[in-house]
């Protein structure tokens, strides 16, 4: 089997992407899928802000507004932020630890297709005109009462997508534990790898509760169970607990990789080792641990009683300590460094004040009695957008600019990058800062419209205007991507000039087997160490050039996911149609047959020979001249 990529037709290229098990291609697929849903969620956000532009507006109906807020939240969390971060984890993490791929390439592909088809399933609801409308939290009394199939799309779509995420998380864990290059001890792992590790461990423990909760919801709605129906002995508060036992760790699953990306950026663009690396690692692990201890702070007003509220309040405040440690270590990383304000660094510098503001309002809401006022008001909307947009989305945009040359071998325009930043950053603060006050002034969240004469008009107008600026920023980014791709100016291994970790010592984009020889890691920031010692390549190898064992591509993951996609429709329609149940059985059978094929067919992979590797290396050194 020849592994050399050849120019082929569109069909062959499509087949190549659908069957790929290469972590880099899957990473790019995650970025494309996540990017698509990010735009969808962004359009939903724009319509929301347009509806709230002025009082008594009726641009969209009350029902449609609830559809929009639900889909905006669900899409942004599950289908945009997390997959895009998964894209970076997939692409960068194996390179950072000197691995040739993730531990389970087949499962990696399966994880992607389950996420993507789950996301498509959720969004198909728009075409049915029956859209989830109980908020992204889908609290049980409302989600059980919701007519139509909207919530069914939510339950089944997230079930499929969530399964993919769980697989991805396990895969990253196994990869980091087993596949680090020689010399890459845990305490030499780059911080992005560390945060991927901790976030993956959190996925392992946080997603099963979601799976269980969604199954309960599915059974309640489609198979006459009564887990949450209080008239039949069920309990809706249990859904809230289950959801937040998943949901709170989820926000840390999002923010930790973001912290990782920023840690890399501060270090690279200050030309300085990350300050207090062990403290950073410890803080990351501690945040991951505490993240599971605080879920009930989302439920202070549910009536859990003062003792539970007091315990969860104090536990919540405690998280501020490791987070503060991180902030100060970043500050001390740039302190005494040589700060170069590139586009990624600009995002990182914008992140610090934005995230600190989001963090402190989080502590304020951790004070339970104060939260009685702030909960479910616009204050909370401001807070979580400050941490998720000011933290996660800024990290995603920073990561796109930082890793674009590594992934595609071309450099995004710095000028356009900075224009994107200015629009997005100014728009972001314009949109959300004023919302803290809307909350103070008594505006509840998730309101379709508001009456005139409550003093909210100007603030809402400012907020909507800010959203427009953010949209302009994203459009500039898209233009930047298109222009850069068309111009196609190739860059070398380390386009930023100060790369410190292994990914910056191999070609951009890397060959499909990543490293010609497995590198030897001699310390934290190994490439930086090598370069300081005069080794211009930045790499010392741990082995001679040998044949490389690689896995074959496979279409089976796609088929397995399609089976679940079909089965979802069967489950949804089985009560009202005669074809629902057969379709459910057919879809599941399809998946099981695909799984059996995978199990029964021996696929031992193939070897890339020494000669092929040598040829690639020679070509690269020739090509490196221009």
């Amino acid at each position: 089997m020849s592994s050399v990529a050849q120019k082929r037709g569109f069909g062959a290229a499509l087949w190549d992407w659908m069957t790929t098990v290469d972590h880099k291609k899957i990473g790019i697929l995650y970025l494309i899928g996540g990017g698509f849903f990010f735009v969808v969620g962004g359009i939903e956000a724009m319509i929301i802000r347009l509806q709230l532009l002025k009082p008594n507006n009726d641009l969209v109906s009350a029902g449609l507004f609830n559809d929009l807020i639900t889909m905006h939240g669900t899409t942004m969390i599950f289908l945009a932020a997390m997959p895009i971060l998964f894209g970076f984890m997939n692409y960068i993490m194996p390179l950072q630890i000197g691995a040739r791929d993730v531990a389970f390439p087949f499962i990696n592909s399966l994880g992607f297709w389950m996420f993507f088809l789950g996301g498509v399933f959720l969004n198909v609801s728009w075409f049915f005109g029956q859209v989830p409308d109980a908020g992204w939290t889908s609290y049980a009394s409302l989600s059980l009462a919701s007519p139509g199939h909207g919530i069914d799309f939510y339950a089944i779509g997230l079930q499929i997508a969530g399964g993919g995420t769980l697989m991805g998380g396990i895969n990253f864990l196994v990869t980091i534990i087993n596949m680090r290059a020689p010399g890459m001890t845990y305490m030499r792992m780059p911080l992005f790898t560390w945060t991927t590790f901790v976030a993956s461990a959190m996925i392992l423990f946080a997603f099963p509760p979601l799976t269980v909760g969604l199954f309960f919801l599915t059974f309640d709605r489609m198979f006459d169970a009564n887990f949450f129906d209080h008239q039949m002995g069920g309990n809706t508060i249990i859904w809230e607990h289950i959801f937040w036992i998943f949901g709170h760790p989820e926000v840390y699953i999002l923010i930790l990789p973001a912290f990782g990306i920023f840690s890399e950026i501060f270090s690279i663009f200050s030309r300085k080792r990350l300050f207090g690396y062990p403290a950073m690692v410890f803080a990351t692990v501690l945040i991951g641990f505490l993240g599971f201890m605080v879920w009930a702070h989302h439920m202070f007003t549910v009536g859990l009683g003062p003792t539970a509220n007091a315990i969860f309040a104090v536990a919540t405040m405690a998280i501020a300590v490791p987070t503060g440690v991180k902030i100060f270590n970043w500050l001390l990383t740039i302190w005494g460094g040589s700060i170069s304000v590139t586009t990624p660094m600009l995002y990182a510098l914008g992140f610090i004040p934005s995230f600190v503001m989001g963090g402190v309002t989080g502590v304020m809401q951790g004070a339970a009695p104060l939260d009685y006022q702030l909960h479910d008001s616009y204050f909370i909307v401001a807070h979580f957008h400050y941490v998720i947009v000011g933290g996660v989305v800024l990290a995603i945009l920073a990561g796109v600019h930082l890793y674009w040359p590594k992934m595609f071998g071309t450099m995004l325009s710095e000028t356009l990058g900075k224009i994107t930043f200015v629009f997005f950053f100014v728009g972001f603060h314009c949109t959300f800062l004023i919302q803290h006050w809307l909350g103070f002034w008594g505006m509840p969240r998730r309101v379709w419209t508001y009456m005139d004469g409550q003093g909210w008009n100007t603030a809402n107008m400012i907020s909507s205007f800010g959203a427009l600026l953010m949209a302009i920023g994203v459009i500039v980014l898209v233009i930047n991507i298109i222009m850069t791709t068309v111009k196609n100016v190739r860059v070398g291994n380390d386009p930023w000039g100060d790369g410190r970790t292994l990914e910056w010592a191999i070609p951009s984009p890397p060959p499909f087997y990543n490293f010609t020889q497995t590198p030897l890691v001699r310390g934290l920031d190994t490439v930086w160490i090598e370069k300081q010692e005069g080794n211009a390549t930045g790499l010392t190898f741990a082995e001679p050039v040998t044949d490389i064992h690689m896995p074959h591509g496979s279409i089976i993951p796609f088929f397995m996911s399609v089976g679940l996609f079909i089965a979802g429709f069967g489950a949804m329609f089985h009560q009202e149609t005669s074809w629902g149940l057969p379709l459910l059985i057919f879809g599941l059978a399809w998946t099981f047959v695909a799984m059996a094929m995978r199990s029964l067919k021996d696929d031992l992979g193939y070897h890339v020979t020494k000669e092929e590797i040598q040829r690639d290396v020679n070509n690269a050194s020739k090509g490196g001249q221009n």
Partner: protein
Amino acid sequence: MMKGLKKWRLFSLLAVLTVFLAGCGQEELSTLLPAGQVGKDQFKLLMLASGIMLFVILVVVAIYVVALIRFRRSKLGEDFIPEQVEGSHKLELVWTIIPIILIIILAVPTVYYTYKLGDVKAMEEVTDDGKAKHLVVDVTAKLYWWEFEYPELGIVTAQELVVPTKEKIYFNLKAADVKHSFWIPAIGGKMDTNVENLNKFYLTFDKESEGLKDGVFYGKCAELCGPSHSLMDFKVKTLPRDEFNAWAKNMKATEDGNNVANAAGEEVFKQSCIGCHATSGAGEGGTQGPNLASFGDRNRVAGFLKHNEEDLKEWIKNPQKVKPGNTMPSFENQLSEQELDDLAEYLLGLSVEQ
């Protein structure tokens, strides 16, 4: 000269005050202008938390700005390689211990107020003759309206909560259909109305609502409950104790008939509305529709529309258009224009305050 200066001072003071007050929102629904002890306690906590947090932000921003000014590559030169500092145990300790101290400063009052605001033991207290010591209101949230029952007084009302000032009022909260949340921003924090259990809390109303813009405090539903979640407003009228007693007595008296402003309208009501709505404020809650005994005294129709004949008729004709998803049927084709006029006049005449 001195006089001019003083005037100028006064003017600037007023200007600052105006800006400050504009930042505080409107008296009838802002958490920043609390009109009850619970809201004041929460406001104190807000000020303390904001103070600590502003301090944190200032420290971070100060280090950040200085670092950005001092350590730019454009200043240090392209080839400058900074010292690769590993870290500092001393600094790590400093920025671990100081935040812990700050958090303890915030945590102590937090725990104190959590227990203080969660204390509803007094609900059970009775006087010597077996009557409840404190006023207890049973709040039931329904798609998309609020029922307020006063079990000790034997009266029930809807959409407009009437309470005496300057005493603790205890609330039993529950939802009849899906989960809602009971929130009077200017008085104090919210509490959810769950479907399966009774939640209890208390509020105090320190200020009479009469002087406010609409003569009422604003109440909100804070939990997404369906299409008309945003329209599920209620109002709160706070009265001195003696006026409240008079109001309660009048409500009780509607048992023996209410004002009839239009007899034909009353007939229409008996034929079309009485299945769901009561016009007697005496008795218990649990009806299909809001109790209308004091409808004429209210501030809004359906919780948010203007309180006039035109909006009332619009509401009766097509409730689904006005408040989608509520449980009231449309009367557009069932009542003639004349009947609607009569009905509206009758309803607006239902009053216990005159």
